[in-house]
C-alpha cells in the first residue's frame, strides 16, 4: 500500500512531491514561543504553528507568587488574570499527545509570559537546533529562537528581576532601533533560506550596519547583506581551519598559494 504523493518508478517507490516543511512537529524538550488562543477549564490552548493547537495545563505553569501547592477552584477562575487570549508565552514541550498535539510547560524561571518586544513568524525548518535558544546578543537585544519558527526579540533586561510583574519602563530609541534592525535581518535571512541561530543573526546584523534599518527590506539590499553574511561565515570557518595549522600553505586552484598571514590581514 503506498500513500499519497508517491508513485512507482522502475519498481522503486518514489516521492512525487517535494518541499519545505511549513508546520512545526514538536519533540519533547523543544523550546517554543506561542500565542494563547483560548482559555479553557484548567488549561490554555496555544497556537504554535503546528497542525493542532498545543495545550498548556494549569498544573504546568508556575503560579504567580511562586507557591508550590495544589491548584484550587479559585486558581481555575483566575486563569484569565494570568494568561489571556492573545498573550505570548515561551514554553518547553513536556510531552506529545497521541493525536500529535503538544503539551507545554513553563515550570522554569526562564519561561512564561512575554513582555514588550517583537514577534517574527518564520518557517520552523530554518531554526537550528541548539543547546540553548535564549540568547543575549552583544548588539544590544535578546532573542528567543523558538523551534516552531516563532522568534521573539526583546530589549536586554539589565536587572535580574523577572520582567512582567511590576511597571515596565519605556524602551529607549536605541534599543528599538536594534530590535527593528534584527527583525529586518531575520526576514532577509529567511528570504534567502539561511539557517537561523545566534551567530548567523549576529553576522547579518553586523553586515547590515551600513544601511538604514528600513532599507534592509528592499530586495537588492537584502541580497547584498546576505552575501556579506555568508562571506563572514566563510571567513570564520576558514580562519578556524587555517589557524589550526598556521605554518601550512593554502592552495587555491584558481588563485594560487597563500600563507595564513596573506589571507587574513589582521593576523
Amino acid at each position: 500500500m503506498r500513500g499519497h504523493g508517491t508513485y512507482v518508478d522502475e519498481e522503486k517507490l518514489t516521492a512525487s512531491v517535494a518541499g519545505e516543511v511549513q508546520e512545526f512537529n514538536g519533540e519533547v524538550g523543544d523550546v517554543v514561543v506561542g500565542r494563547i488562543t483560548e482559555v479553557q477549564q484548567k488549561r490554555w490552548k496555544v497556537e504554535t504553528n503546528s497542525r493542532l493547537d498545543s495545550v498548556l495545563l494549569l498544573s504546568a505553569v508556575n503560579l504567580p507568587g511562586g507557591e508550590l501547592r495544589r491548584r484550587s477552584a479559585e486558581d481555575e477562575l483566575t486563569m484569565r488574570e494570568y494568561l489571556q487570549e492573545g498573550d505570548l508565552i515561551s514554553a518547553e514541550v513536556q510531552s506529545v499527545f497521541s493525536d500529535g498535539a503538544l503539551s507545554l510547560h513553563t515550570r522554569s524561571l526562564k519561561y512564561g509570559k512575554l513582555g514588550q518586544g517583537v514577534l517574527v513568524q518564520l518557517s520552523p525548518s530554518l531554526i537550528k537546533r541548539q543547546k540553548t535558544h535564549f540568547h543575549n546578543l552583544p548588539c544590544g537585544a535578546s532573542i528567543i529562537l523558538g523551534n516552531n519558527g516563532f522568534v521573539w526579540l526583546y530589549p536586554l533586561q539589565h536587572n535580574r528581576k523577572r520582567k512582567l510583574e511590576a511597571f515596565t519602563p519605556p524602551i529607549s530609541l536605541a534599543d528599538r532601533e536594534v530590535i527593528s534592525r534584527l527583525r529586518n535581518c531575520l526576514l532577509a535571512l529567511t528570504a534567502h533560506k539561511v539557517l537561523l541561530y545566534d551567530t548567523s543573526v549576529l553576522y547579518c546584523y553586523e553586515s547590515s550596519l551600513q544601511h538604514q534599518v528600513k532599507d534592509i527590506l528592499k530586495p537588492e539590499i537584502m541580497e547584498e547583506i546576505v552575501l556579506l553574511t555568508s562571506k563572514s561565515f566563510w571567513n570564520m570557518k576558514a580562519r578556524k581551519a587555517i589557524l589550526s595549522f598556521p605554518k601550512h600553505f593554502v592552495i587555491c586552484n584558481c588563485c594560487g598559494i597563500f600563507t595564513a598571514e596573506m589571507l587574513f590581514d589582521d593576523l
Partner: protein
Amino acid sequence: MATVQVSEAEKVYILHGIRDDLRVDGRGCEDYRHMEIETDVVSNTDGSAKVTLGHTAVLVGIKAEIGKPRPMFPGEGYLEFFVDCSANATPEFEGRGGEELGTELSNTLYKVFNNKNSVNLKSLCILKGEHCWVLYVDVLLLQCDGNLYDAISIAIKAALFNTKIPKVHISSDEEGSKEIELSDDPYDCMRLNVENVPCIVTLCKVGHRHVVDATLQEKACSVASLVMAVTQKGTVTCLRKVGGGSLDPESVFEMTETGKRVGKALHAPLMSLLQQEEKLGKSRQKVGFLG
C-alpha cells in the same frame, strides 16, 4: 479585513514606537513599504496592473465595452467597479466572507471617482445619448497584509494608464441608422489621461499619532482610520472615516494635512515609473506572477 491577534504588551511596544517615529520595521510614520508595480499582466484585458505593497498583492483588470450612457449624463461614458476578495488572500474570505469587504471597497471607489475631473468621461463618449465606452474595473485581492485601499488605488491608476481603448468610427448608412466600426489596426487606440486620477492614502490613528501604510499588527492597535483620495494637485476627492473609535476634529485636520502631503508625493514617482515602463515597450521582461 484580515486580523491578527496582538498581546497587550506588544500593543504598548508598537504604540510607543510610533510615538517615537520608529515603527517595528524601522519605517517612519509617513513611509510606505516596498512597492512593486507591473502593468499589462493580463493579456485579455484592455489594461491591467499588479501592485505588491509589502505582502499585499492586488490585481486590476480593465475591460472597455460599448454600452448605453447613463440617462443623467448622455454625453459621457462611465466606470464600473467590482472588487473581488479572493479566498486566496486570507482564510476569512472563504465562501461569502469577503463579500462585505468587497462591497465596501467598491462603494468607496465609486465615491472617489464620482467627480468630473478624475477621468475625462467625455472622451469616453461615442455617440451622445446612444453609445459610450463603459470601463469595467475589476479588482482582485490576491494577498492581504494591510492597507488595501492604497494598493488598490495605485493599481487602478496604473491600469488606467495602461488601458488602450480601440478607436471607433461612426458611419451612417443609406437608411440613416448609425453604425459603429472598430478600426482594423489593433494598435490604433486611444489612451486615457490619468493625471488627475487620485490615489488613496489610509491614515491609521495609533495612540496620539497617525501612520501611513499600517501593517496588520499596527491596525490591531488603532481604533480609527481616515481614508482619503488625493490627486496630484493636492485636491481631496473623497474623505471617509473607518473603524469603531472616535476622532476629534483637530486630529482629523492633522491627518488630512499629512494625507495631502503624502498623497501629493506619491503621484510624481508613480507617473515617472509608469512612463519608464512604457518606454521599455516590447523589450520589457515580463515578471508576471511567478517572479
